[in-house]
């Protein structure tokens, strides 16, 4: 019901609004992705890499002191412990195996903060495939360490100089590259965005998160589903993965946390569900931030990973159908939550993740509620921002 239908839609959202030049590539993927995914040899290779290379299953950790502070039972799903430091690698492992089975020799990707770029460069190194990462010229300056990591891993980082020179433009450039390389190239999109079948394919790769949550909860709480699952939403891939197996369990509350930036109505925000309306971005019909005459606007968030003017079509559907509860969190409150988790639990979260952790200040839960927060990434990449913000 909340998953994709056979036409590639989540309710009224999704589809593949792409120029004809991309049609053969996207169609090739659409026709083949499910059957490739279901091949036993694919599943075996995928799961063995997730285990031995990524380090899965990631722990489901009961955050005792954090729980005491907010008088409820909070579990953290430790995606920060994945190789490369975030959930992004679950998807890139899946897609690189997909690309190999489709006979592709050249990989392209977009990146904002550089996490997806690093995760892509990593799997390309692992498989010995050529890797080109598009990154906004402004982000290249802001995220120098991740640029260096990608280069060490053998990737070519190409600056996107068009438009606003950030994630949205890097995505445009990656799509243009794909148009210009119609046969040998696979585009590894970094979130549950883009034309069908990407949102569904990426969600399936990330769904290992909710699958593990379910198994781990049955050991720890003698139940297979939490009362709530909470995740931050940029494009929405870590959230889609954390919700996946619970989407059709109405008893599980789904909470999506967006970046309010300097405030939802400040003009500097990335809270798409609050500020966006239906339109088309990067080949998908979804909610996006735009002007009255349909030009896509620039979002703002202190966290580069949430700095995207749209959300994936699954999340647009969760929002408009009322299945998901959408909360937005300001830069300031997110940063505070990041420090708070660090001091209470000894875990420094990515600033993206800090947004999800910040909701406990205002969103109250019952003492015996089991609330799983998807700890999507670790904060190492964000140290400079934390240092500046808190004068550390």
């Amino acid at each position: 019901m909340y998953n994709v239908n056979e036409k590639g839609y989540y309710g009224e959202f999704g589809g593949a609004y792409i120029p004809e030049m991309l049609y053969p590539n996207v169609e090739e993927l659409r026709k083949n992705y499910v059957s490739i995914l279901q091949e036993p040899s694919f599943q075996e290779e995928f799961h063995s890499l997730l285990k031995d290379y990524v380090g899965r299953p990631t722990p489901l950790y009961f955050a005792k002191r954090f729980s005491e502070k907010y008088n409820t039972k909070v579990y953290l799903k430790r995606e920060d412990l994945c190789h490369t430091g975030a959930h992004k690698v679950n998807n890139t492992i899946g897609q690189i195996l997909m690309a190999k089975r489709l006979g592709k020799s050249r990989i392209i990707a977009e990146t904002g903060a550089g996490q997806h770029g690093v995760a892509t460069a990593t799997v390309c190194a692992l498989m010995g495939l050529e890797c080109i990462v598009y990154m906004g010229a402004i982000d290249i300056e802001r995220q120098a360490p991740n640029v260096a990591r990608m280069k060490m891993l053998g990737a070519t980082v190409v600056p996107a100089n068009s438009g606003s020179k950030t994630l949205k433009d890097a995505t445009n450039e990656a799509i243009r590259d794909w148009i210009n390389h119609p046969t040998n190239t696979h585009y590894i999109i970094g979130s549950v965005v883009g034309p069908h079948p990407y949102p569904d394919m990426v969600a399936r790769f990330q769904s290992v998160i909710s699958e593990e949550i379910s198994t781990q909860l049955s050991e720890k709480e003698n139940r297979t589903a939490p009362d709530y699952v909470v995740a931050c939403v940029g494009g929405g891939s870590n959230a889609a993965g954390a919700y996946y197996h619970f989407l059709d369990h109405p008893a599980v509350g789904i909470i999506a946390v967006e970046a309010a930036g300097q405030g939802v109505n400040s003009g500097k925000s990335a809270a798409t569900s609050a500020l966006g309306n239906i339109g088309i971005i990067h080949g998908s019909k979804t909610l996006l931030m735009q002007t009255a005459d349909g030009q896509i606007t620039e979002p703002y968030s202190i966290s580069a990973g949430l700095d995207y003017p749209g959300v994936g079509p699954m999340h647009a559907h969760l929002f408009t159908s009322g299945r998901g509860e959408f909360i937005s969190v300001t830069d300031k409150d997110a940063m505070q939550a990041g420090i708070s988790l660090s001091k209470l639990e000894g875990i420094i979260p990515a600033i993206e993740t800090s947004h999800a952790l910040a909701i406990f200040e205002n969103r109250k839960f019952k003492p015996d509620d089991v609330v799983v927060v998807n700890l999507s990434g670790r904060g190492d990449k964000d140290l400079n921002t934390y240092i500046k913000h808190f004068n550390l």
Partner: protein
Amino acid sequence: MNNRIQKKLQQDKKLLSIYFTAGYPNLEDTVPILKSLEANGVDMVEIGLPFSDPLADGPTIQDSSTKAIQNGMNTATLFEQLEDIRDHVSIPLIIMGYFNPILQYGVEAFCKKCKDIGIDGLILPDLPLAEYEEHYKPIFQKNGLSNIFLITPQTSDERIKHIDAASNGFIYMVSSASTTGATSGFGNEQQSYFKRIQAMKLKNPTIVGFGINNKETFKAATEHSKGAIIGSAFIKLLTNKGIEGIASFIKSIR
């Protein structure tokens, strides 16, 4: 349906079509450019409705779109500028744009406005064939608009036949697997693609676009098709020489 595009296609000559971005180089240039193109013998025009994220376009058209938006161009302004265009210009006019601005304006309202003004067709690269057929075809038809689809060297014969059946004007034949503005010239590979499509004997004529920038490429592109579209090269001309440069540019093509 028998609009200006269909009549033009019946003429016994190779057609020269020009693309330009509305609102570039200056906001008020739209009508003067159209008048000049007609006066200089251009057969048909694609008026680009600028979009912030033009996925199928190379740097030249991207930059012109960014500038046009900065100049204040938007859908309502374009329609205002074109309000009386049919008092001055009689060649076929096509609006080329991305789907999102049209979705925001309202597809029905947009198509109605096009009809009122005297627009003959639309090229919307990111409106997929299946969506068009399922949701929008009656709206286009009611307003006398030809919907122009793209094909590329990678488009399968089966899909080309499907596109041909859904088309009612011409088919926009993208010369190579690229965004707009790539200038690799037309070698054997392109020629055999042009010939392959010609041999399919489609019901709609084909007009070639992408990579046409001078007399040679125009000639090569039209050898096996009904006409050719010049976009990026024309935008570059406007950047360098402005509207005054149009006459000699068109003369240099044919």
